């Protein structure tokens, strides 16, 4: 995944101020999320500058690394003053390694994650998503709540399609904010993805007084 900013069309096109504002807001949320993860694992966590992409729904699996790749995914819906969806994605190796770190049980790295690993991952996901939303909510002085985490381990395309179906009911393209998290020492990588609803963007611009 890249940290390039690729924009095609839509609400944020050709508007650098709005782009920068949105990236900055997202960056603060992602920073909080990374800090939380860092505290849980007591390791340095690096994040990339978030990238903003407007992708046709059917191209989302490819843009996330291919529909066939085996991933561990956690899904949250955002409610409160803004709505949208959060997805945490780890490739199989990173996900299993992370579960092993969380449970202090190195046996977890092969096969499929067990129930204890799953609940450790979901708890971690919960903390990351909450930190992200708290960062955003604090900055914008609004209220945001994540749902409970939903967990799936499977091919990427299969994991994200239900989320894409939800977006497909209202739009042909999905706005995707992508932040990559990595722990170099453990050779571990994951993506923090946010799929904001259209209203999400409008409200953020309103709150930042960037209506035009």
């Amino acid at each position: 995944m890249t940290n390039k900013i690729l924009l095609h069309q839509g609400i944020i096109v050709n508007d650098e101020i709005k782009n920068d504002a949105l990236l900055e807001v997202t960056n603060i949320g992602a920073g909080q999320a990374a800090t939380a993860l860092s505290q849980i694992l007591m390791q340095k966590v690096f994040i990339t500058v978030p990238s903003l992409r407007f992708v046709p729904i059917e191209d989302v699996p490819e843009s996330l690394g291919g529909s066939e790749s085996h991933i561990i995914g956690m899904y949250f819906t955002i409610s409160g003053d803004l709505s949208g969806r959060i997805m945490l994605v780890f490739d199989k190796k990173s996900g299993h390694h992370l579960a092993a770190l969380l449970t202090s049980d190195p046996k977890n790295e092969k096969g499929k994650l067990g129930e204890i690993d799953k609940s450790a991952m979901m708890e971690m996901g919960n903390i990351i998503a909450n930190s992200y939303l708290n960062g955003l909510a604090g900055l914008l002085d609004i209220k945001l709540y994540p749902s409970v985490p939903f967990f799936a381990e499977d091919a990427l395309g299969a994991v994200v399609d239900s989320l894409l179906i939800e977006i497909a009911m209202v739009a042909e393209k999905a706005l995707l904010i992508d932040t990559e998290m990595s722990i170099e020492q453990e050779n571990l990588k994951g993506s923090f993805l946010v799929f904001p609803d259209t209203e999400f963007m409008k409200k953020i611009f309103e709150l930042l007084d960037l209506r035009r």
Partner: protein
Amino acid sequence: MKKESNYIMETVFVNIAEFAVVNNPAVIETRSLGSCVAIALYDISTRACGLAHIMLPDSKKVNVGGKPGKYADVAIESMLKKMLTMGVSRGNIVAKIAGGACMFSGLSGSDFMNIGLRNVSAIKTVLKDLRINLIAEDTGGSYGRTIEFHTETGKLIVKSTMAPTKEI
């Protein structure tokens, strides 16, 4: 019969929200179905086949366009139309479906969870209205599926990283 090693069968890939129709020997593949459903329409005598990777049950219930394979109703009707122009006789067409899983086990009861089931039932309704027999299905569960339809044999192979390979 030709030995398999003597020739390479064409493989046609169908992306999400798309469909393909072929009337020559081929393998039609679509990958990583979660709540989405793949439907194969197959003519038992000419071996022409259409395959769609469907996302949503009904084009009339939402106000968004998209590719012709996105909605169950549009996808099935478009495939049928195309097959009929190839000289397929309507009465020979049968259907097989796979997919419609619920990937997130925690989402019980919500609409979101039921989207897989709703896709499956929408497809069944469309097939019933068009009087096409559904002869095999592998739907539901909580795992992703990659499928291959072999037009020479009419077999639908269902592969999954989480379950053993099936043939329906």
